Structure formats: C-alpha cells, structure tokens
C-alpha cells in the first residue's frame, strides 16, 4: 500500500553542456552572451582570490568564496531584467549582485569596513546579503506578492543553499508563494555542503527540486556547473513568473570547491579526492571548451580578460580605499527614521567619548 515514492515523479538532472564542452541540447545563449558570462565567472573567481588574500593580510574579517558555483550564480542572474526584476541574495552570490546593478565598490565596501558605502543604490532592485541562513526567503515571497498585488511586471529571484532548504523559513516561504501564485524564482544552490555537513546528512531526499510538488509548483533539477542548463531553466522560470504562472524552484547541483569561509578548513571533514573529482566538472573549464570549439576563445583572449577583471577589482578596491572609515556615530544611523531621545543621548555620548579618545 505504501509505495516508495522516492522513485516516481523525480525530475532528472538537466544538462545542456557536457563536461567536454559539447552541447546536449539547444544552447540558450549565443557566443557573445557566453563570453560575457565567462567574463563574470572570471571576475567572480578573481574576486575570491583577492579577498582571500586580503583576509590573510588582516584587511578583511571573513570571506566566503564562490569558487565552483559560478555557473549557478551567473547563469541564473543573467535570466533577469535588472530594470524589471528583483534579486534577493543569500550571501555567496557576489557577481549576481554586481550583474544586477550593484557596483563592485559597493560590494567590496562591506568587506572593507565602509558600512556607510554599502547601501544598494536607489533604483537597483536588490536586497542586501543575508547572514541568517534562509531568512531572506519569506522576504522574497513578500516582495513577489507586492509585485502581484500592484500588478507590476517582474519576477523576484531568491538564492539559498541546500542547508537553508532545511530551515522552516524555506518551507513557509515556498508554501506561501504557492498559495499566492507569486512571481518567484527560487534558486537553490546545492553546493553539497553547509559548512562541514554534506548534503546527504542535510536531507534524505534524493533531490530537493522535488519539494516543489508539495507547494503546488514545478521544481527542476539542473547541473549547476552547466551555465547553459542553469540559464535555460532560470529563463523559463522567470518567464513563467512574469506571465503570472507562479513560482518555480530550481535546484542547481554544484560543488563548493573552496572552504566554507576563511575560518574553515575543509580537510577536517572531506577527502581531497572528492574535491579533485569535482574539479573535473569545473564550470569555467566547461564553458571554455565550448567557446573554444565555437572559435570564440583562446588563451590570449582569456589572459586579456583576466587582466581586465584584475584592473576592475583594483579600481573598485582603490575606490573603497578613498572612502572614509565610518565614525562612531555610524552605529546610530538608520536604526530608526528618527532617533528616540534616549538613544540620541547615547549617540552624543558615544561621539563625545570618541572625540576624547
């Protein structure tokens, strides 16, 4: 009577670009767009390298690299229209945020302690990074609900990890989105780890895309290291959302190549061989092979592009370095629209203490 429902109804993992760079289906973008994606992926990786270095130098507190997940992050973000759609990040989607309109300098300012230069600029439809795992999910549902209520065009894309998918917030946000028919695209980046916890200890489900069924909307499982598969799924999901067809859950199966963050040492909990295996499915390598096959890539092009993104990073960091470090009073800014008198007094005391010191 009780059947093992683990088998039927399982979405298969969709792949469009194979490990060797060959196409398994229609490419969802042309060469130009793919080169642009490549640039963002290289910029992402270079940002990782730079910030790990800055952290080692003591200039940055903690940094969590994106290494390995670039196709998931960028393939999804490229499906959005920044002037129309909203993005709700978790914390490891730097280049998606940048692509959506956040200047690199604004992104970096947060890591470099320039709190008053971290605000998302007016007009950029982007929420701040979220440090409470999963907490952004109901915000995204509410935001998508607001679009629907006001009959505004657009979709909301929200990012989260397979760890976040265990939180009650995921469930409540997804279920509410289903009930509302909210224009929401839930991008679950399954990088196989939540700090040290492997995905198979995070859930016994064969895949997490299948959870969508329990909320009444479609779920799709894609190879998260395949830019094309991610982008095709995200594009279709955004179209569905904008067309009023409701939410979609996209599980991107990828792999966190680096440490969880700069305080972490993954050798304490996973074998090098596992990481080496995963390296063979590197999202950048795969796209490089395809672009090369299309005659649109060469080591020289790549070297130029790497030089370019390095310059970009240098410039952004230089810009941040010109920004004044926040004064003591910064902790009182934006707590309320207007400070209640008791806290205004604390503000004055704090500033005074600081001037004394």
């Amino acid at each position, binding site marked *: 009577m009780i059947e093992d429902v683990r088998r039927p109804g399982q979405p298969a993992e969709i792949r469009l670009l194979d490990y060797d760079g060959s196409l398994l289906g229609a490419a969802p973008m042309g060469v130009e767009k793919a080169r642009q994606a490549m640039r963002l992926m290289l910029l992402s990786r270079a940002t990782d390298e730079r910030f790990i270095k800055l952290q080692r130098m003591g200039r940055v507190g903690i940094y969590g690299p994106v290494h390995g997940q670039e196709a998931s992050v960028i393939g999804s973000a490229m499906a959005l229209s920044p002037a129309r759609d909203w993005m709700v990040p978790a914390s490891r989607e730097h280049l998606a945020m940048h692509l959506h309109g956040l200047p690199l300098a604004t992104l970096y300012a947060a890591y470099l302690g320039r709190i008053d230069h971290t605000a998302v600029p007016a007009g950029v439809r982007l929420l701040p990074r979220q440090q409470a795992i999963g907490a952004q999910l109901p915000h995204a549902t509410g935001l998508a609900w607001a679009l629907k209520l006001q009959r505004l065009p657009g979709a909301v894309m929200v990012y989260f990890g397979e760890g976040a998918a265990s939180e009650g917030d995921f469930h409540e946000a997804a279920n509410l989105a289903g009930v509302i028919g909210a224009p929401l695209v839930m991008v679950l980046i399954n990088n196989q780890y939540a700090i040290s916890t492997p995905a198979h200890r995070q859930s016994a489900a064969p895949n997490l895309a299948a959870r969508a069924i329990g909320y009444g909307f479609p779920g799709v499982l894609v190879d998260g290291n395949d830019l094309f598969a991610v982008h095709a799924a995200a594009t279709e999901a955004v179209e569905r959302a904008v067309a009023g067809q409701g939410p979609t859950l996209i599980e991107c199966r990828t792999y966190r190549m680096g440490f969880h963050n700069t305080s972490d040492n993954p050798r304490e909990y996973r074998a090098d061989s596992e990481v080496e295996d995963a390296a063979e499915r590197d999202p950048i390598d795969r796209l490089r092979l395809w672009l090369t096959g299309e005659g649109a890539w060469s080591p020289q092009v790549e070297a130029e592009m790497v030089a370019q993104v390095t310059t970009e990073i240098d410039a952004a960091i230089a810009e941040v370095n010109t920004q004044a470090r926040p004064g003591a009073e910064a902790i009182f800014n934006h707590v309320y629209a207007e400070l209640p*008198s008791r806290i205004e007094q604390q503000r004055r005391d704090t500033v005074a203490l600081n001037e004394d010191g």
Partner: protein
Amino acid sequence: MSELSIIEAIRAALVEEMERDPRVMILGMDVGRLGGVFRVTKGLAARFGEQRVADTPLAEASIVGAALGLAIGGMKPVAEIQFLGFTQQAFHQIGPQLARYRFRSRGRYPAHVTIRAPYGGGVRTPEFHADAIESLFVQTPGLKIVAPAFPDDAKGLLLQAIRDPDPVLYLEPQRLYRRIRGPVPNGDHPIPFGVSRMVRQGTDLILIAWSAAVHLCLEAAEALARKGASVAVLDLRTLNPLDVDGLVAAVRDCGKALVVHEAPLTGGFGAEIVATLQEEAYGDLDAPILRVGSRDTPYPPGALEDHFLPTVARVVAAAWATLEY
C-alpha cells in the same frame, strides 16, 4: 466623537487608513472572510477585497517575513498574529530581520510594517493565548512597541503605527476588546509615540502601567482613595519609545512610584522602568519602586489565572507598603 469599544476603534483606524492609502493592506490567519478570531477585521475583506485583506497559511514566521518583503515592494502591510504568544514562532523574523532591515540596508529599505497582536489574561484562554511577553521585544532596537488601554488611544496609536516608517508591534488588550467603551474623536487623529498619559491625578504615589494593567491600577487607585491616599495612574502607551521625561516628571511630583504589569515579575519591562527612574530621578525618590507582576511561572490554565495575574489586592498591598515606607 463616537462611543466605541476597543475592537471598534481598531477597526475604524484600519478602515480609515485603508481608504486613505491604497498601499495599506492586512494579512494574517483568518483575517479575511472570518474577520479574524476576534472579528477585528470583520467586513474588511468584503469592503476592500481579499487581495488587500488576505488570509495566509498557518505559519507566523512567513507572515512577518512576507510583510517585510511586501513593505520593500511598496506596500504598507498590517500583519495580524493571532495571539502575541505565537510571535515566538516568528521571532527570528521580528528582531533580527524586521527591526534591523533599515539598519542593514543603510536606510535603503525601511521596514514599514505594523504587527498587531492581541494578548493578556483574564479571559480563560488556552495555553499561549494570554502570554504577556512584551518584554521579549523591549531589547530590540529598531522596533517600536505600542500598548493602548483605551479606545481613543487604540485608534490614534494605530493610525500612527500604520504611518510610522519604522516597524511597530501593536499590542491589543484582548480582555478589554469589548469590555470598555469610550469616546473616540472622529476623523484623523494620530497619537504620537513616546508620550505617556496621566489617566488619574494624585499626589502621594504614582502607579505606572500599560495595556489592561492600567485599568487594574485605576481600580486600585480608587480603592486606595477610599482609604485616603491620593494615587495617580500613568499609562505609558508606548514602551518604545519610552517617555522617560514623563516618567521622571511624574515621580518628581509624587516621590513614590509603583509599576504594575501583567507579565511575570522577573525580567519584565517593570525592571527597566525602575532602573531608569532610579538612575534619572534618584534624588526625588522617597521609597523603593516596587513592582507588581504575574508570578514567575508559566501561564497556568484559566481556572488558576487569578492566582497568577496581578490583582487589585496585590496592587493595593504594594501601594500601602510604598506609602508607608
């Protein structure tokens, strides 16, 4: 001027504000067709449509979290949590998210959200439905906390809450919902936050309270008056912002004060009032400021709540002890 119950006053504020501002909407469990378990939103779905008065699934964290998202998206949501006790299911979306979103986004995204929740004892509710847990929110910078005790304040403070650009937790005294009626000025009279209200004058002692406990204090003051003591009652009306000046001025006049609240004694907001007054008005105090609260136990089943909650007798006893100090 109309004579309204607290429920009617709250409903009037909601209706007027929804008519004035199309971005104001209501969300929560059973708020739509049913009009909420207390019928506070009765008739609103019919009037404004089920889009703007929206039933949600049974999941408090998503109600608060979605309200924040709705606000970011341009709405002014009024979220109803069925009973204050169940804000604990949404706790991580209130303090760490709603209250901090303006700060985290460096002003880009104010959290223009009101959370309404009935609370308080004396009506023999099931477990959790009466818990006076307001003090779990008083250490949450960014979150304003409002607790009216009269119909006019209920309306005026709710108008202010809905317009206030900061997130507001608006506490409704369920015990008083229909029990008291009072004059409420017609039309648009929002009441500013952070201003307490002297609801009874007196010279020997001041009783400080908010929400339903104000009425307990009025009864106690009456009883004390019969024994010859002149006892004032101050209704705080908002816990954050706290009317420190009003408190200090009141204590300066009387020299003696007593705080009364429905929450358990230890860790209740009474402690903050005592600590603040002790710091700001030490020289004016002629006696220690005692506190009368509920007992430091879980809220018991209804049949036993009278032993748990503060009573007129306990307030009178503490008042005498203070007067005779």
